[in-house]
């Protein structure tokens, strides 16, 4: 049985992780830019409160979220996860990118605006390209977080062939007190390979994203 559904799990996990990462990265990029670069009242407070929402544990949220999922009849579909993962991924990406944007000298953007770009143009042509390491780090982190997510996936998905790898491996390969050790280990290993690949592929950017700013 594991042999037949494991590829499904892998594909589900990948599909869900990619989509929720794209959504979160897009929102985080815009929100992070606004909080990090624009001057408006309460920007600091707003930034902190977004970070605080990231700290609210999923175990607290999954019951109200389950309600919402039921209302929209999304239960047992990948969209249940694609739309709930951003609840913790967006604050995470926003926070990380906000910090990164703050390290980019504001003169770069000002100079671009004098050079003929609009505020939006300067953001897209100057700030975002410089922030690529930060954006990649946020993306990798978001991807990993959704890849490994367990609670929401456990609660919102029920059909065996719709499950994600972390949930599938645990719920389908443990029957009562019987552990299918071989399959369990193989599943865990295979499930972690994509994440390892993503990491090693982007590791260079990833490190500069965490440590780094831009030197003019």
């Amino acid at each position, binding site marked *: 049985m594991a042999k037949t559904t494991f590829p499904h799990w892998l594909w589900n996990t990948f599909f869900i992780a990619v989509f929720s990462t794209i959504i979160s990265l897009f929102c985080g990029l815009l929100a992070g830019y606004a909080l990090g670069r624009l001057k408006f009242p309460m920007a600091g407070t707003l930034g902190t409160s977004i970070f605080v929402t990231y700290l609210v544990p999923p175990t607290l949220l999954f019951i109200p979220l389950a309600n919402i999922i039921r209302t929209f009849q999304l239960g047992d579909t990948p969209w249940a996860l694609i739309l709930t993962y951003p609840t913790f991924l967006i604050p995470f990406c926003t926070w990380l990118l906000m910090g990164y944007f703050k390290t980019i000298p504001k003169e770069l953007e000002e100079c671009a605006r004098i050079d*003929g770009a609009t505020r939006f143009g300067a953001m897209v042509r100057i700030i975002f390209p410089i922030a690529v390491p930060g954006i990649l780090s946020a993306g990798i982190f978001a991807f990993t977080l959704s890849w490994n997510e367990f609670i929401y996936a456990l609660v919102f998905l029920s059909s065996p062939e719709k499950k994600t790898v972390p949930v599938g491996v645990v719920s389908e390969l443990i029957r009562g007190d019987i552990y299918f050790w071989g399959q369990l280990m193989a599943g865990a290993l295979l499930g972690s390979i994509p994440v390892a690949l993503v990491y090693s592929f982007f590791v260079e950017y990833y490190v500069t994203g965490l440590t780094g700013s831009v030197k003019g």
Partner: protein
Amino acid sequence: MAQVVMKDLNKKYDEVHAVKDVNLHVRDKEFIVLVGPSGCGKSTTLRMVAGLEEITAGEIAIGDRVVNDLPPKDRDIAMVFQNYALYPHMTVYDNMAFGLKMRKFPKAEILKRVQDAAEILGIQELLKRKPRQLSGGQRQRVAVGRAIVRHPQVFLFDEPLSNLDAKLRVQMRVELKRLHDRLETTAIYVTHDQVEAMTLGDRVVVMKDGWVQQVGEPLELYGRPSNRFVAGFIGSPAMNFVDVGISEANGAVWIETQGLRLKAAADRTDRLRPYKGQKVTLGIRPEDIRLASGSDTPDRTFESVVEVVEPLGSEILLDMKIASAQMVARVEPTVRVKVHEPIKMAINTDRLHFFDLKSEAAI
């Protein structure tokens, strides 16, 4: 090429009133320098001209257009920043071409303009490099090049030389001046360095605490400062200040304090007479103090003790103590004096400055 007119310009941040009632008429093709101590509102003024800060009150016109509500890109200006603000992900060529690309210039025109600018600045070999592969001086040139390719109406400079070492700064200063002579574009230049201000500016604007203190040609500021702040700010070493009493005797006006009794020059007596019996601040430039010679009458000499001798090569600075004050004299490099021994000095009394004690305005 255009004039820039600022009318009753004000800028208030939440707590700080950074720029106060600035009125300034920058003439066409003029190189004007805003100078003043850190935090006096120079950058804020410049950034309002650039459109990077909102104007709290007042008006700015570039050419014939009031630009208050125009975004930076529509003001036809170019700005050079202290940290150069080169786009790190673009080559030097792309950095310089960016403004032209944004304005949709044809490719051939962009190429020509960038090459012309690169030639003027001597950076043709650097066009393919990224900013991080350049030295400080080279980055500076690229930043200037990026400004000149656009042929803007006005150049804005915010302390562009402050990040360079002393020698390079002097060299770039001369180059900027030469460049301005060649391009004849109106320029507004901000610096806290009064030497830079004096050497570069056709006219210099001295600011303090958001107020304009005086606007004038460099030598005018030096020779006729309108208040004590300008007098002390312009010139290095700074002007000596001593509080003195004014009295009248034998048809002459006398300037007196402990250890110092000078006769005021004839052309100053009328202006000093109303202060009879009161105190004023006397200002003496270091070069107006010299060793006394036999021909110097007592009404222009004083006794002092030299405490420190600073031989600078082309001149010597003497830090002296007189009874009531500390003074610096700038004398010929051939002068030899002994430290800690009394010495008689003379003052060019026709070059003295006087300031009201309260208002600090020049008398």
